[in-house]
């Protein structure tokens, strides 16, 4: 009886997994069909494999360029926000003055401000600082927007680190900066990984902010580049789907490799958040 029940549960699990995979089947299969075949029959196995779709996408949106743009923006945004947030959180936790408490309170309460509530003036600020159409500008904006959550995650973790380690380092003649970089920062590794992963997925996938800041096609990131295939009236399915597969594949590979960290990051981040 128990054995029978387990069989049923396993079958159920597999059926659910297949349901979740079907969308991937659709886009994979159709990404190698001609436009006519996609329109004729969107479910069957391709009659002829049009790998040329991928070649054309590679060229039309200049895929390597878009990929590089996404990579640069994500790496510098996330590295920057992780560093400045870790430093701020360290100071806030280790010197709990009124000032640092107020700052922490501001960071945390700013998390409730939705992006849409600041996007109109944000474009103005970016314009005023000469940051429109610039990766550096976009990266700086991500620093500002990413700081609240990152500081929040860091400060929760720093509280759990025994201060004795730092005191010992000071007695050994370590400068305050040395204490942070040589003693504290290496200890923050687990939470740093969490911050990096959560923020990387956000920045890499973000659409609205880059669409407001980057108008120049040479600068656009992967989500923006993909958007061009799906304009209102002419949907270039053959190219669009190949583009989707190309954009999604690196993400899924990253996910499969980092799975454990991603899952830990989400559970850790959400239970503390």
């Amino acid at each position, binding site marked *: 009886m128990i054995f029978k029940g387990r069989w049923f549960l396993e079958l159920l699990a597999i059926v659910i997994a297949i349901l979740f995979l079907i969308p991937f089947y*659709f886009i994979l299969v159709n990404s190698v069909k001609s436009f006519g075949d996609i329109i004729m029959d969107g*479910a069957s196995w391709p009659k002829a494999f049009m790998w040329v779709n991928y070649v054309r996408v590679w060229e039309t949106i200049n895929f390597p360029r878009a990929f590089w743009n996404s990579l640069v923006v994500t790496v510098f945004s996330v590295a920057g926000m992780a560093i400045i947030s870790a430093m701020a959180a360290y100071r806030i936790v280790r010197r709990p003055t009124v000032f640092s408490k107020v700052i922490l309170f501001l960071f945390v309460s700013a998390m409730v401000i939705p992006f*849409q509530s600041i996007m109109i*003036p944000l474009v103005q600020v970016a314009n005023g600082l000469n940051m429109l159409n610039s990766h550096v500008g976009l990266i700086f904006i991500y620093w500002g927007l990413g700081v609240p959550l990152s500081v929040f995650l860091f400060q929760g973790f720093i509280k759990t680190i025994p201060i004795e380690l730092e005191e010992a380092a000071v007695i050994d003649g370590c400068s305050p900066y040395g204490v942070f970089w040589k003693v504290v920062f290496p200890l923050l590794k687990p939470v740093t990984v969490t911050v990096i992963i959560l923020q990387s*997925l956000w920045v890499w996938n*973000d*659409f609205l902010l880059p669409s407001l800041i980057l108008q120049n096609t040479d600068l656009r990131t992967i989500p923006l580049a993909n958007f061009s295939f799906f304009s209102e009236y002419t949907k270039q399915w053959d190219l669009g789907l190949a583009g989707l597969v190309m954009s999604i594949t690196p*993400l*899924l590979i990253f996910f499969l490799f980092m799975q454990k960290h991603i899952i830990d990051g989400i559970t850790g981040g959400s*239970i503390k958040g």
Partner: protein
Amino acid sequence: MKYSKKSDLFQLLVFLAPAILFFALMKIIPFFMGMYYSFTDWNGISAVKTWVGFNNFIRLFQDEDFSNSFIFTAKYTVVVVIINNLLAFLLAFLLTRKIRFRNPVRTVIFMPNVIGGILLGFIWLFIFTRGFPTVGKLTDLAFFNLPWLGTENTAFWGIIIVSVWQFVGYLMVIYVAGILSVPHELIEAADMDGATSLQKVWHIILPLIMPVITVCMFLTLSTSFKVFDVIYSLTKGGPFRSTEPVALNIYTEAFGRNNMGLGSAKAFIFFVIVALLTLLQVWFTKRKEVE
């Protein structure tokens, strides 16, 4: 630890100033500028911003599209919170049992979540407009023959399907962690007393994972209320603006019609509502934790 006053001040600068500077520049200053804009008739282009008092706020309360977008967002949020949490818990419960393939199945269910909303919307745009119709022709099942993005009602449920596909794995992961943290002895003791699965869920697991449930409810609530990407690529708010979330309504007002003043007023009201919802949720969570 003691350092001199001067070096202490310098450290304060080094450690705190970068974070505060960027945070203030990109979040706090825009926030207050937005409040100011909402009292002007600024069109985004001209240098002139005339103070119009509460005109924008009066206008937006008469704006039917705006209130409709709130109704849509609220409906969407309620449905997503209920369906996603229920399904995520059931999936987590299933996938914490001792069955084969449970890890690969968990991976598959989580996978859509790493794909960003925009690309995810395009995947489903294809499935709804090209994939389902062909499956419908082959199988003659009514489900696949519905005009998925064509009518107000089906478009709403289409968006729900996509949102579940996207987010249920994320919640499932948190529920899995919650269920695994329930002490083994309790379950074993219940087994010895002959408790059924349902009794174990109802009397042991659910009460013990209450904090996890509140976190997941909060996550779904706050992300659903701010939904933008998926809908922008899936329906663009259509048909007839019936699936236009508040975030998209604000975006169209500001950048589509260049009404930055009115758009800012909408954005301000949006902030107030999101903030109230969040505070209510936090208050609720705290109350639950004390018990």
